């Protein structure tokens, strides 16, 4: 049955077990109630204005039965949920740590080898990982349906979560806690890779081989970067203003800045805007853009600029 999403972590199946258990129990009671409801409704449908009805006011035994049985069942649900919860909350000692920082509206992942990625999380197949998470501005929530994990990220406090990915593939990561205008755009991907592919990625030759050695033109690469690095959450390409100004026809235009001056948008300005966004803030927008210094490489920024230039 595919009413639950693909199960791709070690405890996903157990969570589904809880879901199934409660659902089956619910269906049993639901059918019991519905059947009785419909049966009574038609069996005892009013026939004449003066139907005989017995004077029944209650029944002690029934009262006890339907207090005790649900109580027991409810306790069983609680206990079952608790057991699986305990497992979900207790990371194994050998779990690899990944630092997660969420801010409006991007995900930043920092790995133990010093690498860092945006809106892309790379993990190794069958190797437990532990996310140590923190939010920069407001609440966010790390949610990967396929792993059945969710945990809020709270500013000023560290939260954690762990999972053991059991299937190679690409999975959606959502921000599940409302965090403002870009909330529904705060998406990322989780890549579960085979040990070989993962160590290649760790050594750093992965991106070279996949992205830059490819035959794509800089504009196409920039386009990938644009959607991959979360620019899309704030910058549209169709002329509508979002959280940040649109990229459409941006290049070459005279932008008026917060401090009253204007500036012509050229390559230098674009580069500066990406690396030190607060240096020149566009009129009418809040200085809320995160800096991509140390996150994007020079090649990537060049590609982005090429892409922005192509948007006429």
């Amino acid at each position, binding site marked *: 049955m595919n009413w639950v999403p693909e199960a791709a972590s070690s405890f996903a199946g157990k969570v589904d077990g809880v879901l199934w258990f409660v659902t089956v129990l619910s269906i049993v009671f639901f059918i019991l109630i519905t059947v009785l409801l419909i049966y009574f409704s038609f069996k005892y449908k009013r026939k004449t204005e003066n139907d005989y009805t017995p004077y029944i006011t209650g029944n002690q035994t029934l009262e006890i039965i339907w207090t005790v049985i649900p109580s027991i069942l409810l306790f069983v649900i609680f206990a079952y949920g608790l057991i699986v919860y305990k497992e979900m909350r207790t990371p194994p000692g050998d779990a690899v740590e990944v630092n997660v920082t969420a801010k409006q509206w991007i995900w930043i992942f920092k790995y133990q080898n010093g690498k860092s990625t945006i809106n892309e999380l790379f993990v190794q197949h069958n190797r437990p990982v*532990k996310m*140590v998470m923190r939010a920069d501005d407001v609440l966010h929530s790390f949610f990967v349906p396929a792993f059945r994990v969710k945990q809020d990220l709270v500013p000023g*406090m*560290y*939260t*954690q979560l762990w999972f053991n990915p059991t299937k190679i593939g690409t999975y959606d990561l959502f921000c599940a806690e409302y965090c403002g205008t870009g909330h529904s755009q705060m998406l990322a991907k989780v890549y579960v890779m085979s040990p070989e592919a993962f160590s290649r990625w760790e050594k750093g030759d992965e991106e070279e081989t996949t992205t830059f050695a490819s035959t794509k033109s800089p504009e196409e690469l920039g386009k990938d970067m644009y959607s991959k690095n979360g620019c899309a959450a704030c910058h549209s390409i169709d002329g509508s203003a979002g959280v940040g100004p649109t990229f459409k026809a941006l290049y070459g235009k005279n932008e008026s800045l917060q401090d009253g001056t204007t500036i012509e948008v050229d390559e230098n300005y674009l580069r500066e805007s990406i690396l030190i966004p607060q240096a020149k803030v566009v009129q009418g927008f809040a200085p809320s853009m995160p800096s991509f210094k140390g996150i994007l490489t020079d090649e990537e920024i060049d590609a982005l600029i090429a892409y922005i230039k192509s948007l006429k």
Partner: protein
Amino acid sequence: MSENHDEHITPYKTYVIIWLILMALTVITVYVAREIDLGSINLFVAMIIASIKATIVALFFMHLKYEDSITWVFALYPLFLLSLLIGLTSIDVFNRIVP
């Protein structure tokens, strides 16, 4: 209230006595906190004394002593809820794991 209503009327003298007790407790609580300084159980002592004072005010000044049981229920239940709010919230705040 009307004549035939058996409302308890506290004599004036009682109020003055209560007032003196309250004053004494105020002096004690100040003295304990500022002069003796019991350190960590300061809070505890101060709250006990405050609660004694509050109980006296409620019982005598507010005549809770002579009220019917339903008034007692609605006077005490909020206090229970308050302790619940503090207690259960503390269970959360002070048991969070720090990864």
